[in-house]
């Protein structure tokens, strides 16, 4: 009771400071909410695995609120980018992630920031979960100096610590990711690399080259065996264990990632996770996204499988949060996005003096030829 009174008085005090009519909102204390609940999630299909991720999982209220906030932030950020692109304030390529939030958030929930991640060009969501801010992501999309890559990279080339982009060439990130994992193994730091690619990239030859090398422990043994993870050449597609995961269900992704991370860290080698996910937008802003699927299909996924709605329903029906609380998060998120968009549209473009910088790392300043012989520009590291 004392706690409840304190809350009401805090609300009144806050209102008084803002010179707003004091309205006592329903003051439910944290003691009213369920601190955690158990949920049944879909079983993952497995391949070459004796065990599978758990199907009964626990979600705490705090976790739920955090996941909700991040997913909503990604959703709103992507929708704002859509808007800015249509206003021609964002140019070039823009590949949006709305609908897929459960993947980025679910994966990050089961790894650490000290682990590593690399993905393709649909990267804004991961840039956020890997430590970037909305402000610097949006300012990068609008090509301003406050962008996460100072305006030099754009939508497809954003980097943070232990996040290697953002890669424009389909499939190239897969060997890169294996290289990052090699470095982890080499340094003995028990870190892992999550390497993401789409169904398009899955057909690239370099993916299969990477599967072979990732599984092969780099050349131990005799000559044929050293080069090939499997010398049963007629079975060559199938030597890495795998999981098929419901990518629209955050809890499913989190549990599968937990399982996969354990598998990797315990020295069992690489593992493939197929996340069945769905993007609401077309491939990019130049694709309306309805020539190869119907609007009804998009609508159906949205109404039945939206990852944010799924989390929200779970929390509300288990009394883990209130509608007002979630609405408050929505309001805060919206404000964060608006502030970021304001920054992104008012921050000045990078100065021309910096055009040639960062060609090299940790190097003396060099002269760079401009468009004509008299244009001698300068590059610093």
């Amino acid at each position, binding site marked *: 009771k004392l706690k409840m009174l304190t809350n009401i008085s805090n609300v009144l005090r806050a209102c008084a400071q803002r010179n707003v009519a004091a309205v006592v909102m329903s003051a439910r204390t944290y003691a009213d909410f369920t601190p955690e609940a158990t949920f049944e999630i879909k079983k993952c299909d497995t391949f070459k695995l004796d065990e599978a991720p758990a199907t009964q999982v626990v979600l705490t209220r705090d976790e739920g609120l955090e996941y909700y906030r991040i997913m909503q932030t990604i959703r709103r950020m992507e929708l704002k980018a859509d808007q800015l692109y249509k206003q021609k304030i964002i140019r070039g390529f823009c590949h949006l992630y709305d609908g897929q939030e459960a993947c980025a958030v679910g994966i990050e929930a089961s790894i650490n920031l000290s682990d*590593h991640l*690399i993905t393709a060009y649909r990267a804004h969501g991961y840039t956020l979960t890997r430590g970037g801010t909305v402000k610097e992501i949006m300012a990068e999309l609008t090509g301003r100096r406050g962008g996460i*890559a*100072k*305006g*030099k*990279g754009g939508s497809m*080339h954003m*980097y943070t610590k232990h996040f*290697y*982009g953002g*890669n*424009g*060439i389909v499939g*190239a990130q*897969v*060997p*890169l*990711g*294996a*290289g*990052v*994992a*090699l*470095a*982890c193994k*080499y*340094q003995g730091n028990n870190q892992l*690399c999550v390497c993401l690619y789409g169904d398009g990239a899955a057909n690239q*030859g*370099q993916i299969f*080259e*990477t599967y*072979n*090398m990732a599984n*092969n422990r*780099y*050349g*131990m043994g005799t000559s044929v065996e*050293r*080069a*090939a993870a499997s010398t049963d050449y007629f079975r060559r597609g199938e030597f890495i264990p795998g999981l098929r995961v419901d990518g629209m269900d955050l809890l499913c992704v989190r549990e599968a990632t937990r399982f996969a991370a354990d598998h990797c860290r315990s020295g069992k080698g690489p593992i493939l996770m197929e996340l069945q996910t769905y993007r609401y937008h077309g491939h990019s802003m130049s694709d309306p996204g309805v020539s190869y699927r119907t609007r009804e299909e998009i609508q159906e996924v949205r109404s039945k499988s939206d990852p944010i709605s799924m989390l929200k329903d779970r929390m509300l029906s288990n009394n883990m949060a209130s509608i007002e609380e979630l609405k408050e998060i929505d309001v805060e998120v919206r404000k964060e996005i608006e502030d970021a968009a304001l920054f992104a549209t008012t921050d000045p473009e990078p100065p021309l003096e910096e055009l040639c*910088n*960062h*060609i*090299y*790392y*940790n*190097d003396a300043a*060099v002269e*760079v030829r401009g468009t004509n*012989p008299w244009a001698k520009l300068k590059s610093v*590291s």
Partner: protein
Amino acid sequence: MSFLRGSFIDALVVLQMMVRDALNQAMDEELERDERVFLLGEEVAQYDGAYKVSRGLWKKYGDQRIIDTPISEMGFTGIAVGAAFAGLRPICEFMTFNFSMQAIDQVINSAAKTCYMSAGFQAVPIVFRGPNGSSAGVAAQHSQCFAAWYAHCPGLKVVSPWNSEDAKGLLKAAIRDDNPVVFMENELMYGVPFEMSEEALSKDFVLPIGKAKIERPGNHVTLVSHSRCVGHCLDAAAVLAKEGIECEVINLRSIRPMDTDAIEASVMKTNHLVTVEGGWPQFGVGAEICAKIMEGPAFNYLDAPVTRVTGVDIPMPYAKILEDNSVPQIKDIIFSIKKTLNV
């Protein structure tokens, strides 16, 4: 390693070392110095290297640091670049640079451009090395020179050593550089011995990337070259010296960045310039030198247009007589110099 003692009277030990051994010594020293350095490529470990450049390294450093890969250039080059992203310092060997075409996307888009795209956040300290250019009898698909292709791209450094000192000093510099370096060796040079000074034999002998060397001073004409052709230029210069023509021979050592100042200073002295390269003429190293000279102060000192001596503009043929006539020979260099000097 072969030892040939020089004159005792000078109390100097003159050591002769083959280019492949100089490269080996460079890698050995750098592997020892920095545990983040490692080598990967086809046959680099248990086979001791397709051309024996990495001989003994696997025995000394083991599986973790000397890694045999399958024949998967695109895959292992991407893996090498990813390892560089995450803090290691890989040496990625291409059995020849012809095979680097399979992996060129990883070299250019993943390695060269990343520092710039990330506004200086993500370094890529990697060396891509291997034999480049023509060999002997290996025909068209195994004889291409990639100097111009890689030197075209900002974000890369491109280095082309000629002798053993070049090989050792520049490879050590490349490994220590925090940027992607394309290091172009030459198969026909691997077995050629050169004198190594005491300084060059030391563990900290590093040559600066971006600086050319005047191998032979002269007053009448500047010869600019890289890799194996430097030797041809010196041979041509020796012949011409007997006729009273003194050639200044510049060994570029670096293609990108190129030591334009050294070329210009020389041209301003000799008033004549001949470039010599093994690669094709169009859009090549010599073409770039011509453009640079035209744009700079040395242009006004030229008494004749710049002459380019290059490989013939054809895919490399197989038959010996055809192959011999597809690359610059000493007689071609002499002929071109005399035409340039109008003698």
